[in-house]
Each structure stands twice: as C-alpha cells, then as structure tokens.
C-alpha cells in the first residue's frame, strides 16, 4: 500500500450562526493515499465543500473547527500558525480548484498577469523565469502559450477552467481538491477536462479529492468514493464496492444511485428520495437519514449508527448494514 498523504480524523467543523451551530461536518474521518482519487459525493448541504475549504484550513466564516485533526504528511495542520500554513501547506502541499473558479478570474488582468501573481507571491520568482514556467504549465493543460496575453472574457469556459487548473498545480502540490470542476461546463468539454485531469494526475503524481454531486461522473474518476449525508459519512468504499454488480451497502447511496438518470438504459420511471436533507442545527435523533430511509426501523430512530467496516475497505454507517 502506498503512503498515506492526508488523514482526516474525527473532524468537526461547525458554522456558528445566530440560530445556533450548524454541524456541517460532524465527526468525519478518512484518509487519502498518494496517487489516489477520493470522491466526495452527496446532496447540496451535506458538507462536501466545507470539507474542501476545511482541508486548506480556511473554513468559510462563521465556520470553526470544533475538534479532530487534519494530518498532512503526518502533521496536524489545525493548530499551526497561519504563517506556517501559508509557507508550507496551503497551495504548497494542498491546493484547490474552487467551484465556479473559472468565473473568479479577474476580468481586468490578462491571464499571464494573474498566473504570475501566484509565482511571485510564493516563490519570489523573476518575471522572465515565471513566464517560462507559465508557458510550460499552459502546455500541460493543452493551451497555447499566447493565452497569457488574453483576458478572461476572450476564453471559453473550458479554457478558463484549464487556466485555473494550471494555476492550482504551479507550486507542485501533492493533493489537489477539485470542487465541482466541471459542473458549469458542457458535457463534451466536461469529458475533455476529466481526461486532462487523469493525465495530469499521472504526470505530476498527484492525489485528488474530487467533490461533486454527480454520482455518474464520480464513477469515472474516483478510486474510492465517500458518500456524505448531513455532515457525516454514510458510506465509503472502493469504486467497485459502490458501483459494482452487488450495489452499494447504505440505503442512501442506493437511493441516490437509483435517482441518477442513465442515458444508455431505458427506464420507465426514475426513483427519487422523498423529503429533504435535515436541518443541521438540530439534526434528527438516531441516524440522520432515517426520516427519508425506506429501510429504517426502531433502532435507527433512536440510536446513531457508527461508521463501521462491513467488509475490507468498505465502511458504512447503517444499522441495516451491520446485521
């Protein structure tokens, strides 16, 4: 087994609002091996993006860590001073492509100037040297070097996304968090970007955390899949364990998969999950999914299921799965 590069242990991250504490991440644990892609999947509000920014140790205010550890190459980054994080962790070891990042490029600067900023800030690089590096990285993401002279509005969505990906790789991070990197793109461009990411992962020996709500897309990119529900892990398993013949273990994953429309298969009726995810200020007692779960029984309503290994490498938090 290859080295574990990132480890999340019992992480709790709450948003403190006037109405109470939103338990966006509540006791979440997983690890990421070098060269691996781990998928984080779930409905909106399940804590996927909170996890992403949490791993960079920059929770969106009013979010705060309330416990647990984030070990990057074995070192817990939560207690580190901000200076240390900037110098050694954020963008340096762990970088991120934010959701809708391609729309965050400044419209008044050329692509080259925006890319240069990162290098000058972090590396204090000379202009000429930085320009060489920018051209090299544009090549990696399949863009011509003259893109540097252009403004964001002159590029298509796919091209902007390539620029953002190149920028995320500049400082040679080991882990890249990709938050819905293809959601705003058309399906053909999406496939192109996914191919590119797979190629870059090999070239730079990267590990990915791939965040999306799209289970079908996750199947094509992630070695292991972590299904989140209401701030907790519902199921975590290999691609085969989640998408294989046998089907997933947790009823939530099962229902989510059934609700994913399949293009190549004619279905008479698509299923859906009735109800909505719970309020995370006062989550339901017992299993957080029980109000929407077709398999819930008495125990699920009162006792919260722990995340337990149900077969080698396959975790689930469901009383039904433990039977």
């Amino acid at each position, binding site marked *: 087994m290859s080295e574990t590069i990132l480890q999340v242990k019992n992480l709790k991250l709450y948003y403190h609002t006037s109405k109470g504490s939103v338990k966006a991440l509540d006791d979440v644990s997983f690890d990421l091996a070098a060269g691996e892609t781990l998928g984080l999947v779930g409905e909106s509000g399940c804590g996927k993006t909170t996890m992403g920014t949490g791993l960079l140790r920059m929770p969106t205010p009013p979010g705060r860590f309330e416990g647990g550890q984030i070990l990057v190459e074995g070192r817990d980054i939560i207690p580190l001073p901000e200076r240390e994080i900037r110098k050694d962790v954020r963008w340096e070891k762990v970088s991120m492509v934010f959701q809708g990042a391609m729309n965050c490029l400044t419209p008044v600067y050329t692509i080259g100037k925006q890319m240069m900023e990162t290098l000058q800030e972090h590396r204090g690089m000379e202009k000429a040297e930085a320009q060489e590096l920018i051209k090299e990285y544009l090549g990696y993401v399949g863009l011509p070097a003259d893109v540097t002279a252009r403004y964001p509005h002159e590029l298509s969505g796919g091209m902007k996304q390539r620029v953002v990906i190149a920028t995320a790789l500049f400082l040679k991070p080991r882990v890249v968090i990709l938050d819905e990197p293809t959601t705003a793109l058309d399906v053909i461009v999406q496939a192109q970007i*996914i191919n590119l990411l797979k190629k870059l992962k090999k070239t730079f020996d990267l590990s990915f955390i791939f965040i999306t709500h799209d289970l079908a897309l996750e199947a094509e990119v992630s070695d292991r899949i972590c299904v989140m529900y209401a701030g907790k892990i519902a199921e975590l398993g290999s691609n085969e364990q989640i998408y294989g013949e046998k089907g997933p273990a947790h009823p939530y994953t099962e229902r989510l998969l059934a*609700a994913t429309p399949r*293009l190549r298969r004619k279905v008479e009726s698509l299923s859906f999950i009735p109800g909505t995810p719970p309020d995370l200020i006062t989550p339901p007692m017992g299993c957080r999914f029980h109000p929407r779960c077709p398999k819930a029984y008495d125990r699920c309503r009162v006792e919260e299921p722990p995340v337990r290994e149900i077969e080698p490498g396959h975790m689930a938090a469901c009383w039904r799965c433990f039977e």
Partner: protein
Amino acid sequence: MSNGIDGDVILRVDDLKKYFTPHQGFLQSFGKVRKVVRAVDGVSFEIRRGEIFGLIGESGSGKTTTGKLVMKLIDPTSGRILFNGRDVTSIGQAETKEYRRQVQMIFQDPYASMNPRFKIRDVLEEPLEIHRISGNRAERDTRVVRALTEVKLTPPEDFMGRFPHMLSGGQRQRVATARTLILNPAMLVADEPVSMIDLSTRAEILHMMKDVQRDLGLTYLYITHDLSTARYFTDRIAVMYLGRIVEMGRADDIIDHPAHPYTRALIEAVPEPVTGKVDEVKELPISGEIPSPSNIPPGCRFHTRCPFAKEECRAEAEPELMDLGGGHYHACRRWKEIG
C-alpha cells in the same frame, strides 16, 4: 393519445431566425463591420398536442433563444411561429397577452423567479390579476388551492401563507409550475427546470411535471443540455448545434441510434455510473469547443469539429434535415458512409 405522437400540431416553428447585432461604441463604428451573432439560424419543428418535445444542446446552441422566441419574449429576425395554426409573430398586444396566457414558462432558477416578499398565495394570484381573471376572493382561493393540489403541495392551506425562502428548491419549482397552471395554459415552455434541483429530488419534479401533463393534457417544450433526463422525460428530441437542428426524432431512436456525428459525440461524453472506468481515458470523437455564433463555419457548420468531415462538407451548401423514416431526421450528408 397518451404519448401524443399522433396528435394534431399545436405549435409549428418555421425557418425561425434570430440575429443579434452587438452594441457598438462610437469609435468602433470606424472599425470593421460588426459581426452579427446568428443565435438561431433557420430552425423548424412541430410540436403535437399532448407531446413533450425536448430541445437539446450545449451552451451557445441557441436552445434558450429558441425558447424565448416561442414565448415571444424577443422578436424573430425572420420566420414564423404558428400556434394552433395561427401566426403569432405579428399579432398585436391584446392577442399577445392571450397567447402568453396559453403558453406559460417555467424558469431555471426557482430562487430568482419568485418575489421574496410575496407569500405563495400572492405568487399564485399575481397571474390572475395580470390577466384580470381575478373574480372574488373565494374564487381566487379555489383556483390557488386547485393549482397547489395539482402539483402535490398538500395540504395547500399549509403552503399558501409561506414565503418562498421557507420552501426547498423542489417545492419552489412546484410553486412555479402551479403558477403556470393557474391560467389553464395549453403549453408550457420549461427551460432547464430541474438543473438547479438536487439530484435526489430531480426525478420527483420530473414525475410531478409528467403527471400534471397527463392529467391536464398539456404540451411541453422542454429545453435542456441534459440528454439523460431528456430521454426519460420527452417523447421527441431535437438536437441543436450552433443555431440549427442537426437531428430530430423520437427520444429512444435518437439516443439508441444517433445518425449525426454531433449527437453521437454528445452521447459518448455522458458519464455512466458503472465501475471500471477510472483508469480509462475516454476517447472523444470530437475535439475543441463550439465555435462562436458570430463566426459560423461555412458549409456544414459542424465540419470544423467533425471526425468524418470531408472537403464536400466544407465546400458545399449546408445540409438540410433528411428523413430517415419513422420521423427520424438528421442533417449529415455523410451518414451512410459513416454508418
């Protein structure tokens, strides 16, 4: 006819074109000739009564502009839109108002399409006021209750007093649907109605829309980029590329036996939730991105990205839609060779 395939034609769109001329500054007026954006460039189709017709395409394909033209939110550059056999492109204000009562729209963003200060009751009553069908309080209430019941927001009394922010995305899209139904429309134009709804409840909304369509005998024009929901939801599909329809037919025919290289590429690119694909690099039959509609390639407009394109595709006139039989049309002159 439940699937509406043999119904009479409710909407016919005839060689519809919409060109936009970009705004030009004073200094630019000395420069080169401004480029016209040909957003919709000769689109024709028919929707039969009781049918769900899907317009599919990437961004920049002209699908939304076509929807806006059908809604008469913008005027076409040329071409005709016939509703129940009558040309509605040149009708006056009063008639337009009546047309809009009969053809209603569901918007993409359920968060932005409702006044946050209106209670659900007010949201639903507003169309009645605009169209002066208000009647008295009791009568309006009856209509509101009926519309909410139709979209399964029950008990309706529970929802009437709430504000939009108290509802989930799915519930709002139900309210948006109820708002269209309150005017007894004949047809709904739905532009990406579920793309902002969570995957787990997306099917629920589509079910609801289908039930409403069946119960009330409505016709839908469903505009989307998502082939997977289109296959499930629609009877027929038209695939648009750069302002033109490149393939049209029954949803199952199009997806199981696509004739046009563009449709094939679209289908190829859709991910499937099955295991064993992580180490694969997907072979994409087409490269690049959709060209700008202000700079449409000559000949077949798809030739710049088509893996099968030959000299003739560039040099000869743009292919028209050809009939493959069974109501399946495509616009590729080389389809026989590429099999």
